[in-house]
C-alpha cells in the first residue's frame, strides 16, 4: 500500500519501492503496478536495471562453507565451559568455607596467586593479563628499534641484511596485532612507505635472490593487511603487481619454491607465505586468485602422510631443520581434511606442544599456535596457554632490549632479534 502511494505521489518509483522491487519483496499487486510503470518510464527502467545489476553482482560472490561440521567443536566447547563452571563453583564453595573457617585464608592466598593454584586458574590469569603486556612491550621495542627509513635493520640485530623487507613486513604484522597507540601507528606508516619503496618495476618486494619469496610473500601479506585496515586505494596498484607476481611464480605442482635463476622445487614453507597473501587478496576482492589457491591447497594436502605429518617437498620428506611443517600444513587445510586425518594431525600437534615447546625455534611456535587456534577445544586451548606462558617467560625484561626475544633459537642467525620478536609477538 505504502509503495503504491509512493508511486502516485512522485510519479516514478520511490527509492525504497525500487529497492524492494529488485529484491523481490513487493506484494504481487504492487509489483504488477511497478512493472506497468517501468514499461512507460525509461528513466525508472534504467535505474532498476542498474540496481539489479548491482544486486546480481553482490549475489555472484560464491558462498563459503564451513571446512567441516562445527557441531562437535561447539558441543566440546560447551562441555568445557560447563565443566569449568562446575569447578568454579567448587572453588567458590571451598573459598566460602575457608573464609568461614579461617577468616583470612583468602587474603593470604590471593596476593601470591595461590588462590588460582589449579591449572585452569592460572590459565585464566595468563589469558586476561599478561599477553597484552607482552605484546605492548614488544611493540614498544619495535618502535625504539625502527630505522629512520621505516625499516628494521636485520644485520644490526643479528640477522641477514637481505631479509630487511621480510622482517619489516613481519614487524608490521605484529604491530597491527598489538594494542593501538599513536607511535605504533606512526611506525606502521613508516614501514608501509619503506616497503613500497622496496618494490621494483617487476612488482617484486626486496632484492632478487633465492630467498626473495619470503620477502615478497611477507611484504605482500603485510600491505594487504594494511589495505584491509585502512581501505587506502593507493595500495591497490602496487599490490596488484605483487599479487600478479605471486600467481605468475606458482609451479606446475601448485606450490612455490625458491626464486633463483633456476626455479626450485616447491616447498611448504615458501608456499605458506604466498598462499597466506593470496588468501588475504581473495578476501579483499582480488580476482584470479581462487584458482591458484585451490591448486596450492591440493598440493599442500598431498604433502600429508598417513600419520598426519606433513613433508617439505613431498609426503614423508622431512629434513631435520623442517620441524614447522606439520603445524604449517595444518593451518592451511586442517578444516578440510577428513576427520580421521584431522584427529591424527591434532594428536601430533598436541604432542609437539607438550614437548619443550619453544626449545627449537620461534617459526615452529608461530605455526603451532596458529594451528592450535583452529582447534577450539579444551586440550588445544590448554596447549596454547602453556605455549603462551613459556613465550612470556622468555621475553627480555630488562633494558636496553626490553620487550624483545633473544635470537638464540634456530634461524636466529638469519632473522636475528627482529625476527624472534616479531614471531614471538605474533604467536601470543
Amino acid at each position, binding site marked *: 500500500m505504502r509503495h503504491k502511494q509512493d508511486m502516485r505521489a512522485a510519479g516514478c518509483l520511490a*527509492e*525504497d519501492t525500487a*529497492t*524492494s522491487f*529488485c*529484491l523481490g*519483496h513487493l506484494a504481487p499487486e504492487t509489483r504488477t503496478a511497478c512493472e506497468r510503470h517501468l514499461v512507460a518510464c525509461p528513466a525508472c527502467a534504467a535505474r532498476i536495471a*542498474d*540496481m539489479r*545489476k*548491482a*544486486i546480481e*553482482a*553482490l*549475489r*555472484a*560472490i560464491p*558462498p*563459503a*562453507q*564451513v*571446512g567441516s*561440521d*562445527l*557441531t562437535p*567443536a*561447539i*558441543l566440546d*566447547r*560447551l*562441555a568445557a565451559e*560447563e565443566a569449568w563452571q562446575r569447578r568454579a563453583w567448587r572453588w567458590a564453595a571451598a573459598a566460602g568455607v575457608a573464609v568461614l573457617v579461617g577468616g583470612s585464608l583468602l587474603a593470604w592466598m590471593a596476593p601470591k596467586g595461590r588462590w588460582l593454584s589449579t591449572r585452569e586458574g592460572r590459565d585464566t590469569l595468563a589469558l586476561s593479563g599478561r599477553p597484552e603486556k607482552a605484546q605492548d612491550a614488544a611493540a614498544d621495542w619495535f618502535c625504539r628499534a625502527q630505522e629512520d627509513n621505516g625499516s628494521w635493520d636485520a644485520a644490526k640485530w643479528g640477522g641477514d641484511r637481505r631479509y630487511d623487507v621480510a622482517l619489516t613486513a613481519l614487524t608490521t604484522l605484529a604491530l*597491527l596485532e598489538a*594494542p*593501538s597507540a599513536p607511535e605504533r*601507528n606512526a611506525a*606502521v*606508516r613508516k614501514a608501509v*612507505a619503506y616497503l*613500497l*619503496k622496496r618494490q621494483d618495476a617487476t612488482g617484486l618486494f626486496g632484492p632478487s635472490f633465492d630467498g626473495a619469496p619470503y620477502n615478497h610473500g611477507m611484504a605482500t601479506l603485510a600491505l594487504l593487511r*594494511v589495505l*584491509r*585496515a*585502512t*581501505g*587506502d*586505494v*593507493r595500495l*591497490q*596498484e602496487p599490490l596488484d603487481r605483487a599479487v600478479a607476481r605471486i600467481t605468475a611464480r606458482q609451479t606446475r605442482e601448485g606450490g612455490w619454491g625458491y626464486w633463483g635463476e633456476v626455479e626450485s622445487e616447491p616447498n611448504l614453507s615458501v608456499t605458506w607465505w604466498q598462499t597466506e597473501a593470496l*588468501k*588475504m587478496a581473495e*578476501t*579483499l*576482492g582480488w*580476482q584470479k586468485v581462487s584458482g591458484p589457491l585451490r591448486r596450492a591447497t591440493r598440493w599442500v594436502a598431498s604433502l600429508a602422510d598417513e600419520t598426519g605429518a606433513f613433508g617439505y617437498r613431498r609426503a614423508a620428506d622431512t629434513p631435520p631443520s623442517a620441524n614447522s611443517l606439520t603445524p604449517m600444513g595444518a593451518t592451511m587445510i586442517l*578444516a578440510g581434511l577428513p576427520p580421521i586425518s584431522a584427529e591424527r594431525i591434532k594428536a601430533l600437534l598436541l604432542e609437539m606442544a607438550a614437548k619443550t615447546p619453544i626449545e627449537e625455534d620461534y617459526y615452529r611456535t608461530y605455526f603451532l599456535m596458529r594451528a592450535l*587456534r583452529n582447534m*577450539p577445544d579444551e586440550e588445544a586451548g590448554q596447549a596454547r596457554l602453556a605455549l603462551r606462558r613459556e613465550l612470556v617467560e622468555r621475553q627480555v625484561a630488562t633494558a636496553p632490549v626490553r620487550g624483545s626475544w633473544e635470537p638464540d633459537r634456530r634461524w636466529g642467525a638469519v632473522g636475528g632479534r627482529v625476527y624472534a620478536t616479531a614471531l614471538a609477538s605474533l604467536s601470543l
Partner: protein
Amino acid sequence: MTSEAEQPFRPHNEARCSEDPDAALALNLAAGSTAALAELVRRHQNALLNFFLRMGAYSNGEDLVQETFLRVFRYGRRYRPSARFRTFLYTLARHVWADYCRKQQRRERLGFWLLADAAIRDEHPPTPSPRDRMDVRAALNALSPKLREVLVLSVYQGLRYREIAEVLGVPLGTVKSRMNLALENVRKMLNAP
C-alpha cells in the same frame, strides 16, 4: 551431554514448525537441549559463516560462528516464539561481531592516519580504480558498517526488512533508507570509471 546429543530429536511443538522451521528446535533449546543446538548448528552454520565473512571477518569466521552458537545456547532461554529463530540468531551474531570489532578498533583508527600521510601520497599518487579491480567484494568492504550490515542481512541472509529492523533495533524506515543508500553506493562503485 553426549548421551543426550545422541538421542533422536523430538520437536517440542510441531504446530510452530509450519511458520518458522526452527521454532520447535528453538523451544527445545530453551529447555536446555544440546541435541536441538546441534541441529540448529547444522542448519545455520554455513549461512552464519557467510554473514561474518561478508561483514569483513577473515580467517576467524568459523570462530565467530562457534561463539554465536555458544551464546545461542547460553541465552536460549530468552528466546520467545513470537519472533523467528533466525531473528534471535542474527541479533546474537551481530553482538558477537560488534564485540569482535571493538577488539579490533585500532584498525578503524588506522584508516585515518594512512590517508593523511603525505609521504606516501607524494610517492604513490592515487591511482584510479578500474572497473575490473574494484570488484564487488571491494565495494562491499568499502561500505560503512551500518550500511554493510543491512545489505548483508538483506541480500545475502535473505532477511525481510522487518526482521532486520528487529535484529538491529532500529525503525523500519531506517532499514529502508540504509538499504537504499547501501545499494546506491555499491552501484556507483561498480560503475566508477
